[in-house]
């Protein structure tokens, strides 16, 4: 049992991630408003960043910019990946938002319930 408690305390970063991730995913799958869905999607993606970054941290380490006087650096590898992921995230977001603008123009609503029931399913 003590191992479990120890484990829980030392891995708290993962539980933060999981909470944020689930909230983001929940917004995406449960909300009908398209803008809100995209916000949720952004949250979902953002929470993944910590999943990558947090294991790269070393206690007592410093940012991976080499300088005299420091010997322990946190891992630069995940940082690079997440930089790419952020870029992909904003690209997706902007494309999604532009689709929302057009959808709003064409259908005058951005609520999914109304749209999908009326447009896509009745043929």
């Amino acid at each position: 049992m003590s191992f479990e408690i120890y484990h829980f305390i030392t891995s708290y970063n993962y539980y933060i991630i999981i909470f944020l991730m689930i909230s983001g995913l929940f917004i995406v799958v449960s909300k009908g408003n398209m803008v809100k869905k995209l916000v949720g999607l952004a949250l979902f993606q953002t929470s993944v960043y910590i999943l990558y970054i947090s294991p790269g941290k070393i206690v007592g380490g410093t940012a991976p910019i080499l300088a005299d006087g420091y010997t322990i650096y946190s891992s630069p590898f995940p940082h690079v990946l997440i930089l790419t992921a952020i870029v992909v995230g904003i690209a997706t977001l902007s494309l999604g938002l532009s689709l929302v603008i057009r959808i709003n123009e064409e259908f005058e609503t951005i609520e999914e319930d109304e749209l999908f029931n009326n447009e896509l399913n009745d043929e």
Partner: protein
Amino acid sequence: MALTTLGIIRLRNLFSVVILSTIYSFLMATLLLIFDAVDVALTEAAVGAGISTVLMLTVLYYTKMNEEKPRYRSVLPLIICLVVGGLLIYGTYGLPPFGAADTPIHTHISVQYLERSINETGVPNVVTSVLASYRGFDTLGEVIVVFTAAIGVLSILKRDKV
């Protein structure tokens, strides 16, 4: 952060949602700073809190400010989330504790980057050297993603010439 997330879930006013997501991004940037990811923190602050907020507000200018009440409630989303969450807890259980230095992430390839970067590329910021050189092809992909998105947005939003 948890509070802002809950706020985003509960609030129906989209303006507040966007502002909350900006706050979330700033908090995220701070957190990333704590994790020593300075480059990422800078980017997240500029992108998450800057550009995406501006874009979302522009969209809100065109659309309605309030989210409508969902007509029916479904348990399915909750189930999906619980399954994913359960799987994540299952999967992360037993992973190396936070802040440890002897985990595979640190001992395998990162070490090589840290040791080789200055000699092979002459760049002290290891993030830059990995980004631009060791994994330069990823960065090329990333630029192509931005390119694709920009061309796509232009094609979607440009009015057709009559």
